[in-house]
């Protein structure tokens, strides 16, 4: 999208919400922003209804800020806590059904390639662990098998948050949760490993407690998806509300896990590494 499309018709400026005007005057469209610029420009997300202290909200915020070309990025979401923030996002985005995000994204990406043969439109999927690894798993994996050029982000809060904290396939073994009243009977689904077997060109496991890593991984993932193939980021965003933590404790909970079983892992295929180096990204 060119900036001329964004610029409001001067006759209408006075009826536009201030938020929109700020976005045009001081937003991230056009000029690339980096993490350190946060706090100095108008972000693409407006006030969202997610919980105070929500780690998912933080990961969402960081990743949206790290998009390499927001003016040509569309985002596909799914039902879940994140979908409540999507309505406040100043990028074209889709919510249709719970779990079908990678199917929607595949159709979108292919159609956008037809409509804009000379332009890259980045398609980024962002959805919960339930949407990605449970109800949407088949569509997640098959989009990877087919090599769809999209980025898939899982907000791993290790449960179904939006419906009140039920067990998901990504919950930890033994967790006592709704619908797992005697504790979960099996371990976390190893989706990063499966992603590799399924042909993802770039896979990263990151913790929300490391904003810098979240941002750089997202950028790499989007770039690799443009040219090489599907990419996957699994970001750990434990849910303070359903873990019954104080709002301020969520980030610490994430960091603690980062130091034990949720460490940073990155897998880059040779083709992807080569491509990233060519772009000057290490």
């Amino acid at each position, binding site marked *: 999208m060119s900036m001329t499309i964004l610029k409001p018709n001067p006759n209408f400026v006075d009826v536009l919400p201030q938020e929109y005007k700020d976005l045009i005057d001081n937003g991230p469209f056009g000029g690339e922003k980096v993490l350190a610029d946060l706090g100095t420009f108008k972000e693409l997300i407006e*006030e969202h209804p997610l919980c105070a202290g929500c780690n998912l909200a933080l990961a969402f915020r960081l990743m949206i800020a790290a998009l390499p070309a927001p003016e*040509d990025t569309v985002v596909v979401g799914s039902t879940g806590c994140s979908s409540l923030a999507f309505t406040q996002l100043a990028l*074209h985005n889709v919510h249709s059904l719970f779990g079908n995000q990678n199917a929607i994204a595949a159709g979108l990406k292919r*159609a956008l390639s037809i*409509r804009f043969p000379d332009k890259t439109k980045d398609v980024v999927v962002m959805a919960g662990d339930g949407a990605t690894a449970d109800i949407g798993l088949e569509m997640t994996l098959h989009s990877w098998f087919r090599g769809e050029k999209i980025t898939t982000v899982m907000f791993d809060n290790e449960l179904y948050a939006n419906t009140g904290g039920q067990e998901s396939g990504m919950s930890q073994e033994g967790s006592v949760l709704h619908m797992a009243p005697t504790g979960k009977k099996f371990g976390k689904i190893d989706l990063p490993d499966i992603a590799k077997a399924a042909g993802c060109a770039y896979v990263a496991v990151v913790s929300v407690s490391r904003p810098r890593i979240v941002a750089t991984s997202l950028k790499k993932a989007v770039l690799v998806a443009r040219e090489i193939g599907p990419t996957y980021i699994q970001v750990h965003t434990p849910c303070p509300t359903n873990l019954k933590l104080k709002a301020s404790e969520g980030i610490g909970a994430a960091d603690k896990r980062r130091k034990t079983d949720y460490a940073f892992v990155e897998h880059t295929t040779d083709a992807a590494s080569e491509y990233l180096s060519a772009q000057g990204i290490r």
Partner: protein
Amino acid sequence: MSTGKPSLREVSAEYMLFEAKRDEVFITGSEAVREAVRRANIDVAIAYPITPQSESMHLVGELFAEGYVKEYFRGENEFAVMSQVAGAAMAGVRTFTATCGPGTLRAFENFPMWSGARLPIVIAFPTRAVNTPLSIQPDTIEMGFLLETGMIMLHAENAQDVYDMLLFSFDVAEQTSVHIPIGVFLDGFFVTHTRQKVRVVSEDVKLAPYNPGLSPVPHIDMETPPFRYMKDPFVLKSNFISYAAHASWQQEVAAAAVRARTHLRKFTKDLEHENPTAPIQIVASGTAVSQSRVALRLLKGSGLDVGLVKLKTIRPFPSKEIKAALKDARSIVIPEFNRAGWLAKEIAATIPNNDRIVPGPRVYGGMTMPPEVIVDVIKNGTLIGV
């Protein structure tokens, strides 16, 4: 992905349907799907096999290989395919797909979503029975399930209907005031696998392309400014606004189907009426019409005066037209290829004095409906005033 067939001449749907010269070919219903798709200038078609749909989507695949369709692939299941097609339509291109029976039910949740998202997808349903027990045979039960999904529903009697209905469906579905999906139903095997004469136009034309600019909802392409960007959106401001947003959207989808009437009527009648003054009337859609035509032949000279209403548009349901057509009927027979009798129920709920209706005959399980059975119901069912 290909760039399509630039060599073909772009024409309007009206030209395609009414003006262009036609040739007669001897083809199946599945091939009629191919011939419509060949000329429909489709961007994205996505397939998942199921009998008796597979042949038509194979043929669409061949059109892709030949460059008539720009993008085509096999999805992992029908639920996914219907979402993939939705994604493509959201991005602003013309899409086509097909499924039936179990596939329709597998994908079910997508259909109200399509309507709600205002996607002008055209989909063919070569109808088939649903499990359990499994049967690959013709049965129109799935139409009964789909009645309230918001989509426009057309029921073809034969391969010619399939060809014509599909071609004008793109034009109707894509109208700004419509912009909802259209399902074209063709009875599995009875139409898909039966070779018959069909009049088609030459292969050097195609419909004008989909124009994303005319969509009543913005496409997901980041080519228009992001909308709804404010701190406290109105919709969160009041129970009533929030409820009303959902309710009015549903009403708008329903209204779009009603507005589609005008556009549909450019190309087809809601119903066709043979012998309208007869006191006994058969009402049918799909191949139940064909079987009824034979029944009329058999009844010639029997002394019974019988008419036939061929219903083509199932949604929006032509209530007024049906009422008018059946105003003076004394007895109404409704042959159907399904157990539930959804058409009989529609009509019974529509016309006054619905005790004139003799529900049935109904045939399901895949057998053809011998015209003799319709004759029998007319001779016995009506006379004894069932």
